[in-house]
């Protein structure tokens, strides 16, 4: 039993997180679903686009649906370069959204792929200003290293383009990041099914962030629960260390047995 009771927490920006599932706020048919999604997903981190926050209208402000114990992760959705991302991050902090920031610099509106160079620049500036920076990125080892050097608190590689639900298309590249980057690797974007999230966790991702798979499903609350279970199962499997995978069956009559000392 003791091995099950061992503490397994993720620490980011000095905060201990028991849940390794981060969720988003976009695409819901109603923001009123958010509290229940949070509860059923067990998630302790939620990302919100600053562009959607309306502080002049507290009743309709998306923030009002987020319980206080949940870590707010404002994101820089809409930023086309580092300069815009930096300004959005500063606005979020001044507006009282805390010092965590998910950097999204997207200068490609067709595939919504992140701009690595501009993301590194924004990370460097914001980390120096005391932000806990979580940059969204394409899983490129050199970009990830630069982000780590620039002061990122974690890196968030995409599994597939945002909103596509296509799963871990970049699996091998993410695996390299998990192996080489001394920061939590949080798989962000592309996760469409609980099995995708489970797969990411099994290979050693620190956490998963997803939105479309829950928000655009027919039953977001039920899907949130499914993802909670999948992320937990994947993490447990990673900690338990899965067995060796072999392409061949283990021969029942080994070919080199004749070399063993003969039994008398």
């Amino acid at each position, binding site marked *: 039993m003791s091995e099950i009771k061992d503490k397994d927490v993720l620490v980011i920006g000095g905060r201990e997180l028991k849940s390794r599932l981060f969720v988003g706020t976009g695409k819901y048919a109603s923001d009123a679903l958010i509290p229940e999604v949070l509860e059923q997903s067990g998630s302790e981190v939620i990302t919100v686009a600053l562009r959607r926050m309306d502080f002049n*209208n507290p009743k309709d402000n998306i923030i009002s649906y987020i319980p206080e114990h949940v870590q707010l992760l404002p994101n820089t959705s809409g930023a*086309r370069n580092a300069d815009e991302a930096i300004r959005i991050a500063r606005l979020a902090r001044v507006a009282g959204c805390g010092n965590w920031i998910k950097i999204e610099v997207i200068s490609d509106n067709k595939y919504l792929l992140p701009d690595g160079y501009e993301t590194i620049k924004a990370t460097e500036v914001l980390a120096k200003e005391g932000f806990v920076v979580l940059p969204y990125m394409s899983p490129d080892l050199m970009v990830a290293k630069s982000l780590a050097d620039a002061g990122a608190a974690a890196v968030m590689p995409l599994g597939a383009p945002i909103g596509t639900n296509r799963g871990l298309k970049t699996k091998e590249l993410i695996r390299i990041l998990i192996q080489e980057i001394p920061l939590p690797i949080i798989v962000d974007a592309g996760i469409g099914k609980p099995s995708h999230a489970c797969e990411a966790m099994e290979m050693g991702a620190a956490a998963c962030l997803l939105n479309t798979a829950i928000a*655009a499903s027919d039953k977001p609350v039920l899907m949130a629960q499914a993802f909670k279970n999948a992320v937990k199962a994947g993490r447990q499997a990673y900690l338990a260390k899965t067995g060796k995978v072999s392409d061949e069956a283990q021969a029942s009559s080994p070919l080199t047995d004749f070399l063993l000392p003969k039994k008398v």
Partner: protein
Amino acid sequence: MGFYDVCKTYQSLDFKEFEKKITEQHVERVLQKSYLDQEDFRVLLSSVAKKYLEPMAKKANALTTQQFGKTILLYTPMYLSNYCTNQCLYCGFNTNNTILRKQLTLDEVEKEAKAIANMGLKHLLVLTGDAKHKATPAYIGECTKVLAKYFASVSIEVYAMDEQEYVTLVECGVDGITIYQETYNEALYDEIHVKGPKKNYRYRLDAPERACSAFVRTVNIGALLGLDDWRKEFFLVGLHAQYLQSKYPETEVSISLPRLRPHKGQFKPMCIVKDADMVQMMVAMRLFMPRVGITISTRENSAFRNNVVPLGVTKMSAGSTTAVGGHTECEKSEAQFEISDNRSVKEMKQSIIALGYQPVLKDWEKIDKDNSLDSCLVGK
């Protein structure tokens, strides 16, 4: 190669001949594809594809939910001025039409802004007629500065401008441009734009590209449906959107489907665009460009607008008036065209919620260097 050259290659294409070659098998093959090319788009706009509206609609619905979620962004138009120097046969502001002409003062702009902001809207589309000497770029810039205090996003639908004029307006707080080519048919364009600066086809055609170069955040284009064969027109709208999106990936490109409405003057549509045609265009566009924004204005009636919410629409107007000063009690001018959906913002929100969608009032935050953070700090 600019879009004018792209357009020219298609002007000579015999659409009717192309249409004859399209079979049901073509349409079925396109419907199985994940990424569509220009020819596939043309196939989906064909008369043969009309039989496949339901599977097209289902696919468009799934793609839209995946890309944008179950959300509809609301905005309202605000007319600053209806002075016009053009003679466009289809428009109520035509300089030959005897209507009450009016241009709002900055004080009146502020009154209108307050009235609209009180409805809860945060996205505004500012319009003027085409009278550059009257509603000058400087005037539009000053109005924008006033409006920026009340709205998270200010877009403009005015006459075509030079790139530097767009740059200046962006500095004043404009973040979106809407400009319709009206018709991509150059000869017809010349015929229906009888007189005035708008007669310059190419200057207008290149305006969206100049706006992209000026780093305007959103650029919305369209053709006035009813002026020419809608299949040909909308095919070119799609190509224009694709051209802009490929060349300026940092710009959010969107399209509108304005259908000719009754207005002051005698002009009658040259072609009748039916509801089914509108749906075909909308869903074909969603399949061709899954990320493109699609706007449906109050030119359309409430029943039609409700029905198309799940088909790819991302943005809708509400509480609309097409008259200068139409949102306040001050003397109203003549409307540019009749609107068909008179629902208030509150009613629109209720309708959208009833359809299982979320009405979004704010989806942008001004991040210009001079942002005083006022909008964030109020209420904190």
